[in-house]
């Protein structure tokens, strides 16, 4: 019974809106644009976050990456602390010992992968490329999600055989002028011959992932079995030009730790940090915890998102003020109607309900249209800018909630003004 009464009052409120269709539409526009831009901003924010997640996710959210870094003044002879120099050999970075200790003492670890790097010239006939040789264990590809475009990845058998095989990026093939089927092709690296067994697809080497992987933009990485490098070449590398030469000895350039449980990643990284800082007072390493990076970048992104939405909300606020403004004018214009309704038995709350019905209807309708507008805006932005945008169900709910709130808050003052009118003078109003 009560609810039917409410329905009738609601219908009466809607009739008034239909009585002034043009004004209703114009009043609605503010909310339409406001909600539209809020939706678009939320979608862009969510899109940026998704991209971030993908980019950093490539590094493996469960991984901890430790890179060797050359200490600040490697040329400096004054031996400070544990000497980082042996004669003229530049000796720094992660050691086999670090790798062993991590494997032996840190709990909750799935895999620990050693990586050694060396700069070598790779030859194809008379063409050559300054390439980076990655000595990696077979799991390396899986841990970083590096996809093999053709051929195969390195295998445990390669390790055992100390096989002279390699996996390359497709970019390298182009630089070396290899256009036919690269599988089985033989490259000369320094003075040794390596057979190409696999080619990596390129799409994994972008943005933040590239830096953490120590990959470079020239795509000249060559992956070879860890044991092959270690047993056949050792870790020392020479570079020299007429007269003088320099040697670098970095046992391990990178250690990749894969943690068993996602919620143990941060804790494990702290334990490893402890261990390494004891072994390396000179700090010749850096740790990258993708999960942590993600959290930080996310925080920044979220601040940015809030700023975006706040700006968009200003137009929504203006829309709300528009509704309040029109409603106040409406109250004046319809003073007589209010007087009539009061004379016919409307209580103050009926009058309030009537005006609030009108404003919330305007703003909800505006909100729904705004959501469509938002979808359109997002489509256009995506087409013209190529940005990623994601419209989440939550953003739609947020938009609708906000528009209801706008309707109620912008209606409350005009509605109370209307209800406070004295019926007799309202009836006499011209």
């Amino acid at each position, binding site marked *: *019974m009560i609810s*039917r*009464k409410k329905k*009738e*009052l609601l219908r*009466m409120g809607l*009739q*008034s809106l*239909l*009585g*002034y269709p043009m004004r209703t539409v114009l009043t609605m526009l503010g909310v339409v644009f406001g909600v539209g831009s809020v939706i678009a901003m939320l979608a862009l924010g969510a899109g940026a976050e998704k991209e971030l997640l993908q980019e950093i996710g490539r590094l493996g959210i469960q991984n901890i990456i430790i890179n060797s870094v050359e200490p600040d003044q490697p040329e400096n002879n004054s031996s400070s602390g544990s000497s980082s120099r042996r004669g003229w050999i530049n000796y720094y970075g992660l050691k086999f010992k670090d790798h062993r200790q991590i494997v032996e003492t840190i709990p909750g670890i799935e895999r620990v992968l050693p990586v050694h790097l060396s700069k070598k010239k790779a030859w194809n006939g008379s063409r050559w490329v300054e390439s980076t040789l990655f000595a990696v264990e077979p799991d390396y590809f899986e841990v970083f999600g590096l996809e093999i475009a053709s051929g195969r990845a390195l295998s445990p058998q390669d390790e055992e055989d100390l096989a002279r095989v390699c996996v390359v990026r497709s970019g390298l093939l182009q630089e070396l002028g290899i256009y036919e089927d690269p599988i089985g092709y033989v490259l000369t690296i320094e003075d040794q011959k390596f057979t190409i067994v696999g080619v990596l697809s390129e799409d994994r080497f972008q943005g933040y992932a590239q830096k953490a992987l120590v990959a470079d933009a020239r795509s000249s990485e060559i992956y070879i079995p860890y044991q092959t490098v270690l047993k056949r070449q050792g870790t020392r590398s020479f570079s020299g030009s007429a007269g003088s030469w320099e040697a670098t000895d970095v046992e391990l350039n990178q250690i990749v730790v894969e943690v068993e449980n996602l919620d143990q990643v941060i804790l494990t990284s702290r334990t490893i940090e402890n261990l390494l800082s004891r072994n390396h007072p000179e700090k010749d390493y850096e740790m990258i915890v993708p999960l942590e990076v993600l959290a930080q970048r996310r925080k920044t992104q979220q601040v940015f998102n809030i700023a975006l939405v706040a700006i968009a909300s200003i137009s929504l606020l203006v829309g709300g003020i528009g509704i309040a403004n029109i409603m106040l004018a409406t109250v004046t214009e319809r003073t*007589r*109607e209010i*007087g*009539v*309704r*009061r*004379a*016919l*038995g*409307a*209580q*103050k709350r*009926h009058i309030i309900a009537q005006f609030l019905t009108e404003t919330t209807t305007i703003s909800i309708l505006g909100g729904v249209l705004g959501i469509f507008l938002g979808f359109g805006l997002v489509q256009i932005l995506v087409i013209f800018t190529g940005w990623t945008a994601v419209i989440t169900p939550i953003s739609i709910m947020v938009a609708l909630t906000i528009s209801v709130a706008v309707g109620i808050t912008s209606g409350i003052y005009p509605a109370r003004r209307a209800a406070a009118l004295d*019926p*007799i003078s309202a*009836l006499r109003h011209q």
Partner: protein
Amino acid sequence: MPQPIISLEGIHKYYGEVEPRLHVLKGIHLDVTQGEFVSIMGTSGSGKSTLLNLLGCLDVPTEGSYLLGGKDVSQQSDDELSRIRNEDIGFIFQSFQLIPQLTVLENVQVPLLYGESSIREKEEHCRSILDSVGLSHRLSHRPSQLSGGECQRVAIARSLVNDPLILLADEPTGNLDSKTGQEVLELMDSLHGDGRTIIMITHDQEVALRAQRQVRIHDGLVIEEAS
């Protein structure tokens, strides 16, 4: 002597908050019994509308008591007064006071919105009332599409919807030419014939004479005219 449906005792009405306040009604006594048709006359500014507003519970007297159907309504809350207006009182105004964006039928239904019974239930009732005032062919017209006389008949239909105790009319023919005025008055006569209690303000002696009882407001008091 039957119980009066309206009973005013020592009604005073002052306007304004600061002295000198305007003393419009100065101790009015008036009883109206069920089924009476009373006309109120008086010079402009004598307080006719003031009295009618009090009778219609749009306003409350500064002093005195007002019993409507045996119930004291002189000091009620705003919500309570709204309910009394809705259930017990039917208003007919000089300027019709229809709501312009609503149709004839919807205008007649407005009082139902604020009462207990639902519009759907009373739809037939509304149609038959509109039929009885001769407007069954105009249900979905807007007030702007009607003549003055038709508007006033819609207003009369609206005043009857909740079957009120009394009908209050403030110069119902004031905005009409004499012919349509006559039609409206005939409608009032027939309502009186149906046993309705009607109180009508008018300037026109002839109109006043259609009522069975005439009173005049003079110097803030009610004077009965001998008919």
